[in-house]
Each structure stands twice: as structure tokens, then as C-alpha cells.
């Protein structure tokens, strides 16, 4: 009995040690939600600039996911085969954008694809000018957010039994067919999880965007840029957009977790107590 009680105290101390961090995260989130009245929310959403920012963010983040799926999936598939010699180099390279400060990514993109950038002259010849365009927003978001998909999908790809692919090859399937009929059907939860993470990160991208793409309502002003620039003038706008972003990110993460628990590691669910 005494022993049990002792355990109880230690148990609650153990749980109490979680509080500082949880409160640290929850209080600001609560402050955001408490900082806005529903009437304000409705009124702010009707402002064209707010609506434009929401629309542009949804469009560009969706395009970034699409681009990531197209150009990231091959890299991801390659990374799932650890035996390649260039694996480590490639793995590090893919991780790099996630640890770079986004502002560095913005400067790098500008120096590479800007009008006076490394590829500027060639792009000019083709009549392409990237900075200050919606395409630049998508590039900035993809640069920063694609690694999340690539890493997640690679884990899914590498979980597929090699024998399966071999037997498919024995049955005469070419690489593309193996990928299409074996790999994708078996690893789509990881791909979807990665895509959602990339989407959420793209939605929140700010540093690289404002440097490479600038800030123009309806063209390059995403929700985070509008929050940053609008903060000084109208706090309500900033808070409204923040609440929308938090909600969307929350939905994205809940979806991701749901897939992780139900499809990717259903066997490894453990309760924490």
C-alpha cells in the first residue's frame, strides 16, 4: 500500500515534468485563438487582401506538392536503395534545405535564378523572369518543403521486401511496371504522409518566399507574408490569418498521424504511461 502510494507520487511528478513544455506550446496557441472574435474573423475574411493571401497560399502550396511528387519521387526511390555508393552524399544533400535558414534559401535562389543570377542570362534568353512571380513562390516552397516528402516516401519504399520486386522482375515486369504495380500500391501511405508534411511546410514558408518572390498581393503575397507585413497595420488581419494557418496545419498533421497509425506502423502502437 505504502509502496503503491510512493509510486503514485513519483508517477505524478513524472507527468508534471511534461507540463512546462506542453504549456509553452499550448498557451501561445490559446492566445491566438482567444485573440480573435468570431465577428472579426468573418469581417476580416471578406477583405480582398486576406482572401487573396489565403487563395494564393492554397494554390502555391498545392503546386509545390505536385512539383515535389514529380521531381522528388525518383530521388526518394533512389534513396530507398541504400546500397548505392552516392547514397550518403545524396542523403545529406536532401537534408540540407531543411536545416538551412529559409532566408539563406531565398538568397541562394535569387543568386541562382534571379535576373542577374547564375542562370539569369539563359533564362532571359528564353524570356523567363522568375523573381516576383507566383512561380518563384512555388520554387521557394518546393526548395524548403520537398525534403519532408522525399524522406518520408523513402522510408515507405525501403520497407518493401526486395524479393517481391525480384519476383515481379522474374515475371517480366520492367522497372516502371514494378514501380507502378508493386511499389506505389504498397507505399502510398508513406507517400501521402510525406505529401501532407510537405504541404504543411510549404503553407508556412516565409523566409525564402519574401526574399526570392517578394511581396505583392494576389501574386506573391502568401498568408505568412501577409501576416508579417500586415502585423503592423492591422493586428486582426494577422491573427485571422494565423488562426487559419494553425487550423490547416493541425488538420494536415492529424491526417498524417492517422495514416501513420493505421497503415504504416499499426503494430507498434504503444500506450505511454
Amino acid at each position, binding site marked *: 500500500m505504502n509502496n503503491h502510494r510512493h509510486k503514485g507520487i513519483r508517477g505524478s511528478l513524472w507527468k*508534471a515534468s511534461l507540463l512546462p513544455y506542453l504549456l509553452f506550446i499550448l498557451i501561445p496557441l490559446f492566445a491566438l485563438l482567444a485573440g480573435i472574435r468570431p465577428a472579426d474573423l468573418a469581417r476580416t475574411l471578406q477583405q480582398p487582401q486576406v482572401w487573396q493571401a489565403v487563395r494564393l497560399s492554397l494554390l502555391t502550396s498545392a503546386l509545390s506538392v505536385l512539383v515535389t511528387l514529380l521531381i522528388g519521387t525518383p530521388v526518394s526511390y533512389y534513396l530507398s536503395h541504400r546500397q548505392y555508393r552516392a547514397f550518403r552524399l545524396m542523403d545529406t544533400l536532401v537534408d540540407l534545405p531543411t536545416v538551412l535558414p529559409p532566408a539563406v534559401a531565398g538568397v541562394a535562389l535569387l543568386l541562382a535564378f534571379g535576373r542577374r543570377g547564375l542562370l539569369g542570362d539563359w533564362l532571359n534568353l528564353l524570356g523567363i523572369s522568375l523573381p*516576383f512571380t507566383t512561380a518563384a513562390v512555388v520554387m521557394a516552397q518546393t526548395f524548403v518543403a520537398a525534403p519532408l516528402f522525399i524522406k518520408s516516401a523513402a522510408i515507405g519504399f525501403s520497407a518493401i521486401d526486395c524479393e517481391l520486386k525480384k519476383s515481379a522482375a522474374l515475371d517480366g515486369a520492367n522497372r516502371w511496371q514494378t514501380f507502378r504495380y508493386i511499389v506505389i500500391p504498397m507505399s502510398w501511405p508513406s507517400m501521402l504522409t510525406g505529401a501532407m508534411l510537405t504541404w504543411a511546410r510549404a503553407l508556412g514558408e516565409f523566409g525564402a518566399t519574401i526574399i526570392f518572390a517578394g511581396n505583392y498581393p494576389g501574386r506573391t503575397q502568401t498568408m505568412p507574408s501577409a501576416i508579417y507585413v500586415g502585423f*503592423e497595420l492591422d493586428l486582426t488581419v494577422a491573427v485571422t490569418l494565423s488562426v487559419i494557418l494553425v487550423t490547416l496545419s493541425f488538420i494536415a498533421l492529424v491526417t498524417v498521424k492517422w495514416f501513420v497509425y493505421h497503415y504504416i506502423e499499426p503494430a507498434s502502437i504503444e500506450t505511454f504511461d
Partner: protein
Amino acid sequence: MKKAFLFVSVFVLLLSSACTPGAAPERSPVTLNILAAASLTEAFQEMAPAFEAAHAGVTLQFNFAGSQQLAQQLANGAPADVFASANKKQMDVAVEAGRVAADAPASFVQNRLVIVLPPNNPAGITALADLTEPGLKIVLAAKEVPVGQYALDFLAKADADASLGSGYSTRVLANVVSYEENVKAVLTKVSLGEADAGIVYTSDAASATGEILQIEIPDGLNVIAQYPIAVVQDSANSDLARAFVDWVQSSEGQKVLEKYGFLPVK
């Protein structure tokens, strides 16, 4: 839950006791927090060593950003000793928030607007009228930033000038590709050659590191920016803060400001 609370309070107590300084020794080093408009960056940084040399133990800690950001930081309780704004409006924000006494701000310097162009002027702009050329890439500061508002004021004045053609401001604004968050960002986009033209302060153009080109805006159309400076009301070192404000207004301080393209207050 009670125990949890106890644990957290002990934790917080431990933390706070660790942070409480002991008895402060006399003449302990002082850090003055100066919030200053981004356009003042070079001038204030040049003044700092002389001021610090004249006031032993004092270190100036600058926070340069768009005045609107600094005003907002002040309003939200950022610790500060001096606020130097690029316009009256943002100083008023600090006054309304109770951080600066209503009679404290004093104009200490003036600035004008100028058009800046990238080094080899790819768009071939030679006069104000050229800014209406369709297809140009013009970069301005956002209207929330003082220089952005001043630029809009200049365009509004220019509309009344018949020599620039009708609808001047509309045609110039149609060429704007980005509204940047502070004046230095405008200058950077122009000096990198990513934009064909931008509107900044003469002081920024004077302190630009690259070889940017400039087009003067005539007096009749130009906008004079008045910079107010004030000691923050709740400054823990208001005497030293006052000393810095006086330094900026002294002939020595004014000389540095003029060197960086600012105009003295008349």
C-alpha cells in the same frame, strides 16, 4: 494535479532564483537598447563607438527594422531605452501605447526620396516620366513602412504635375512587382539588379555599397521625411538614454547623419 502544481512552482522558483542578479556593483556595465528605423543603420552604427568611448561601461544595442515593426514591438512591451522613428505616425503608435511621453519626441533629422536604379540601368530609365514605361519592374516598400507611405505621397503629388502625363501614379503603380518590408530590402532588390527601379531615401542611396544609379526627385514633388527621436518613458537608464538622444542632436551626431545623406532639421 496539486502535486503537479507544486512541482511546477518549485521548478519556476528555481529558475527565477537562478536569474536574479546579486547586489549590483557600482558602475555596472549598462546596455542601452536603441530601436531605430532601418534607414538609420549606417549612421547610428558609426556614432556608436564615439558615444561608447565617451560613456565608460555603456554598450549600445541597436535594433534596426522598419519603424512600423519597432513601434509594434514597443507597444507590445519590448524593453527599450530610445526609439528613433522614420515618421511621426509610428512614433505616435509608441506614444499611444504609453511607452513614450506625448511631449518627448523631437525631430532630429530629415530625409528625402530618390529613385534608385541598378548599376547598368538595364531598363534605360533617365527621367521620372520613364517610370510609367509598361513592363518595368519597380519595387516599393509596403505602405505600412514609412518610406512606402512617403513614396505614395510623392506619386500623389506627381499626379498634379502635367509634365508627367495624366494618371502618372496609376501607371507607375501598375509596374510595381513587390512591396517590401523595409527600405533596405528595396535597395537590395535594386542593387542586385532584380528590379529596374525603386524608391528609397537619399540616405539609403548614399550609403549603398553597390554602384547604384540615382534619379533626383525635384523639390516640388519630393516628400520630406521628419525623423522623431525620444527616450522611452520606462527606460531604466533614462539619463544615459537622454545622453544618446543629445549626442544624436549634437553637431557631431548631425555631421555623421549628413555624411550618410540625411538633411539637418531646419
